[in-house]
């Protein structure tokens, strides 16, 4: 059956010339046999049988204890010794909104003005970004695409990374609104008391805006249309999540109160460097966290030198729902290192399968799509990949098969083509 796998490769490598063509709808049923399946919910099946039909997972079994009827499948792919993971999810991502950071024309992530809840990232999402094709080759198949800047940046949407256009890419539109909480500790040389008053002033402004939005949705029939306020409706009726970007205890404490004050049912903190210090309160208030980039320096000189590495394990102990995201400098291209950040977190205490969940099922839960994505469970979308080895370890992450909704996607990209071009020029094999 390895023969079939190589046939699949040949098909992909030969038919694609420069731009990756989105995979076509699954026609034939596939059976992934004998790979180690990391389900995403904490479970692992060392020798698994995963059946995929019409874009869905139709069977997940332990092939050691069950006899698998292979005759039902058009293609049987033997992956013994290899690993299967649910497609990794890049949360709080800007992929497709910016390709070359230094080139103004390529930047589509900031809008002018401070309160822009009506801004929608999805319509600017570029499915043909050259970066995305280098990200999915490492197992990242889905992304929450977020606008940036201002106080309220706008709404984010969940997409998959193999599409003809943004409509095609869309999984969940406008699933949440992003609020950049004012910074309590601002790195400014100004007097602290002034900073504090700025923090409070900013906080009041936000409360006032939310008050207006709250009143607006109550009286939406009588009021004249205000598209900014209207865009906030989903936060109050629970159809949209409020993502609040903040790091420190003082900010998080205020955010918890804010959530109560406006009775916001879904709230997720993005960042949360200090979240482990207030984990109990976060759990009590049903607040989830998208932890900051693992590969970063501690924020205080006297912090444990490995603190950013161990944030996931610290939070995991508390039972707060969390996932790992990667915003920061050059975040678009660094997205491909997301699995390795999980690897580092595992080195610093995170349980392996919780590590899997931290960029699969947990993310799907936060995004509200765990009914169809995030794990290798019956009935879910067949959005998954096979890696030759442990996908969290750099030297063994080698994605061989990648499926989105059962569609086999190309694992080629410009970088690989360039490499091959020059290998050929210099006669290197």
């Amino acid at each position, binding site marked *: 059956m390895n023969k079939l796998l190589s046939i699949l490769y040949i098909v992909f490598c030969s038919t694609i010339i420069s731009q990756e063509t989105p995979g076509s709808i699954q026609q034939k049923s596939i059976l992934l046999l004998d790979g180690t399946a990391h389900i995403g919910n904490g479970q692992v099946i060392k020798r698994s049988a995963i059946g995929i039909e019409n874009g869905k997972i139709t069977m997940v079994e332990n092939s050691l204890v069950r006899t698998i009827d292979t005759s039902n499948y058009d293609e049987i792919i033997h992956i013994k010794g290899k690993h299967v993971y649910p497609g990794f999810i890049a949360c709080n991502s800007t992929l497709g909104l910016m*390709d*070359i*950071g*230094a*080139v103004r024309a390529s930047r589509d992530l900031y809008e002018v003005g401070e309160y822009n809840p009506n801004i929608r990232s999805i319509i600017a999402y570029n499915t043909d970004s*050259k*970066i995305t094709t280098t990200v999915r080759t490492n197992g990242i198949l889905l992304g929450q695409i977020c606008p940036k800047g201002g106080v309220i940046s706008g709404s984010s949407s969940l997409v998959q990374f193999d599409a003809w256009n943004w409509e095609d890419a869309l999984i969940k539109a406008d699933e949440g609104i992003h609020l950049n909480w004012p910074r309590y*500790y*601002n*790195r*400014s*040389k100004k*007097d*602290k*008391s002034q900073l*504090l008053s700025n923090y409070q002033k900013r906080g009041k402004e936000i409360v006032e805006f939310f008050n207006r939005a709250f009143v607006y949705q109550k009286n939406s029939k009588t009021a004249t249309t205000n598209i900014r306020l209207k865009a906030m409706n989903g936060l109050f009726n629970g159809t949209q999540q409020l993502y609040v970007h903040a790091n*420190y*205890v*003082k900010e998080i404490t205020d955010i918890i109160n804010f959530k109560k004050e406006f009775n916001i049912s879904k709230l997720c903190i993005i960042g949360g460097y200090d979240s482990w210090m207030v984990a109990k309160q976060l759990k009590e208030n049903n607040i989830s966290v998208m932890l900051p980039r693992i*590969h*970063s*320096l501690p924020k*205080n*000189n*006297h912090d*444990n*030198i*490995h603190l950013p590495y161990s944030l996931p394990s610290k939070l995991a102990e508390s039972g707060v729902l969390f996932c790992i995201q990667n915003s920061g*400098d*050059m975040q*678009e*291209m660094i997205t*491909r*290192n997301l699995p*390795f950040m999980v*690897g*580092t977190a*595992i*080195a*610093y205490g995170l349980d392996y399968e919780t590590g899997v969940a931290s960029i699969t099922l947990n993310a799907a839960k936060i995004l509200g799509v765990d009914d169809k994505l995030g794990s290798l469970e019956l009935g879910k979308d067949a959005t998954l990949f096979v890696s030759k080895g442990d996908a*969290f*370890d*750099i*030297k063994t*992450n*080698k994605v061989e098969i990648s499926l989105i909704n059962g569609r086999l996607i190309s694992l080629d990209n410009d*970088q*690989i083509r*360039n*490499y091959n071009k*020059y*290998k050929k020029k*210099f006669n*290197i094999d």
Partner: protein
Amino acid sequence: MVVSSPKKKARPNSPQYESSNKGPYYWNEAIHPEYKAIVDFTFNEKSNKELLKKGFGVVLSHREDGIARGSGFVSTLNTFSNKSLLLNDAACFYSFKKGSSNQVYPSSLMGCIALLRQFNYDADWYNNSTPAFKDYSIETYLNSLNKPQLFITNNNLDLLRAAKIANEFNLNYVIKGGGDEYERINEIKNTGKTFIIPLVFPKAYDVEDPYDASKISTRKLRHWLNAPLNLSILEKNEITFAITSKGLGAEAFLKNIRLAVSKGLSKESAYKALTETPASILMMSEEIGKIQPGKWANLIICSDEFFENKGVILENWVQGNPTILSISKEIDIRGKYNLNTNQNIRTLIVNGDRNKPKATIQYNLISDSITNGDLILDPVTGKPFKITKKKIVPVSISLEDNKINLSYQLNNGAFILSGVVNFDSGSWDGNGQNPNGNWIQWTAIRNEKFEVKKEIKIFTNDSTIYSPIYPSASFGFDTLPVNQSFLIKNTTVWTSENDGILFNTDVLINNGEIKYIGNVLDLVDKSTIIIDGSNKHLTAGLIDEHSHIAISRGVNEGSHSVTAEVRLLDVINPNDVNIFRQIAGGVTTSQLLHGSANPVGGQSALIKLRWGANADQMKFENAPGFIKFALGENVKQSNWGDRNTTRFPQSRMGVEQVYYDAFTRAKEYGESWKLYYNTKKKGKHILPQPRKDLQLETLLEILNSTRFITCHSYVQSEINMLMKVADSMGFKLNTFTHILEGYKVADKMKKHGAGGSTFSDWWAYKYEVKEAIPHNASLLNAMGITVAINSDDAEMGRRLNQEAAKGIKYGGMSEEDAINMVTINPAKLLHIDDKVGSIKVGKDADLVLWTENPLSIYSKVDKTFIDGKLYFDLNKQPEKERALRKERASIISKMIAFKNAGGKVQKVKPPNEILHNCSLIKDDGN
């Protein structure tokens, strides 16, 4: 005294490259030794008085502007100002701050240092030759070298940097420090210099909120604790110092000097530092500094000993003129008196400031009780209730010598009294007028003295002994690691040599060297510390070819296109916690590079990460010098905004010509020296000596192959271009750093003999890196080019092992080749592979023990050795953290106690730290 600040010049519309000072002056506006502060001097009554109140008689004033600031003057605080100037051009001032100059150069600390050095070389040359021009700046400088030379710095790092310049040019700088000398007291003592030490102590922080407290750096906490001990530590180390009161008002100055005395500074030393030593620094010991016949009659009269808390300066005599600052205690009239006016006795309370007392008359007024207009009657007696009201009447009081005037208003009118205070100050008497205009006699007899509180209450912490920590940052050492003999047993050794990976092997290190590799068994003596290396992996210490950690105030001298004269070694900051963080990531050697803001940047600093050492001790000994070059977007200012469009070059075409121009100049410079040396008559040089040019000298070193180039590069065209420039000018490109399109010109690089130091997978952050590929390192490696993986980033620097592993993932490299990219390959690129970079007998014992395969994501650094000393131990880290937490908590609790006792505190300000990378132009203020 007030010397007016320079007028703020309007920021020019485009960067100003030339001096706006037209005339026979030095080319750079920050160098103006010809400036005389006296020109901008104005007498200011208030600041004069403030200095008198501190007890000073003579001050040295200058204008704080520029690098060579010009001269200051010595004046007395005599208010008869026509007598006050004792000496104009009394001393010359220098600093590392550019000041009000709008000229772009220098933009960094290393630029300031380079400029000052070049200026000194220029002055030497001017002095020893017959230049065909006049430079008034240099001439004034030369003429004033016999005067005291004062260098103003604000911290011990700058202080030591100034001392180095003094040594280089044989200048006798007196250096003003920052009050943190105790942190590096041995180094400071070894300079042999005299210092001027400020008395400004850091304010305590308001740390009642633990989250706020967590934002204060450990160094700041410690400095609050230790700063008051500074002077006593200087004294104990027999360092000569004067004290400056700059930055303090009179009250704060007196408080702080007494605080320093209470912390162990002897009164003799303190006195000397305020009198004799400054007089001698100013070379004015003949006139001032002691009470002696023939000297100026500058003296202060104190109520008690000056350095005692109860001491009050009563009078300050300057040139024989007294200023009364405080009325002597003998006529402290405060207290409670019985004031008797015509047999009416009332209580008079005198309180307030001793020199400006306030007074009130207090008596009881008895009246009927009335509510809503009705008399309230006592139900028993039927008579109105009597109520007693305490009445307080303000008294205006004035006291001149022993004459006293009182006036006050009672119900029946005003009393005006005049009299004298008798000697014991507790009894007054005199005459006055009552409201009727009749003359009356009065007396006031004190029956209670005003309780005199301590005149100046000093709040402080209880710290009395300074325990040094190296460096005074988080995770500093209280005792520095020492050389020991270690035997790492039964481990997997990644030799980075032909031997490849050895299993179950022992490695013995002793005396800082690798002594033995193999099976040692009983060879070791008892003092050898045995480390179980089973299931662990040992590699050579990692080498980061491209780092920007541990740099003070600017990684770019980004002003000019060529700045070969600036040196990173001048600006090492050994206190950067990132040094320790890198060690914890297995890095033992880092090349600190200049940024990429210009085609020719500055000279690199190669350091071993000897955490705790001083800046000089960090230097990698006997390593050849390097310099940073840069190509592409950064040097052509593509992303610098619309203001920066006038510096040449603005295109890659211009970059080539910058190099041709620079190396052509360097060659001609070399020729002129050759000619000078070779043209002799009777053994004597007959040609005028060429001017020493630090920039061209550095470029000449490149041409002479004594300095090597690391060139920031991205796009194939420019890489190719620079190799062609090098070939035609006769030099070599040693290393292309970043070299993201190296894979396109690998054949050409190989032919030229250049190595590559690249990012593992960075791309797409700017236009010129859109063709970068993560397979670059593997392809270069396969082509037989020496290739290293570098960080350019303080965070990634501590995960270089992971970055190396990407060579396996993307390019299918072998594990040995991958680890070599962060060990022996960078060592080869840096020409230090004879000392470090592999595990080989005789090499430096710079080693890292890993918990697993070092290329695995799950691997952690277990131990890091540098020069055979154990600098990092994962197992000891929790203990180290506990100790740090405890120390911080202890200082924080002291701050809280201090606040509760009434001490003043400031709000916590978050730290302002900037991490350097290649393209950072800003100065981070550290």
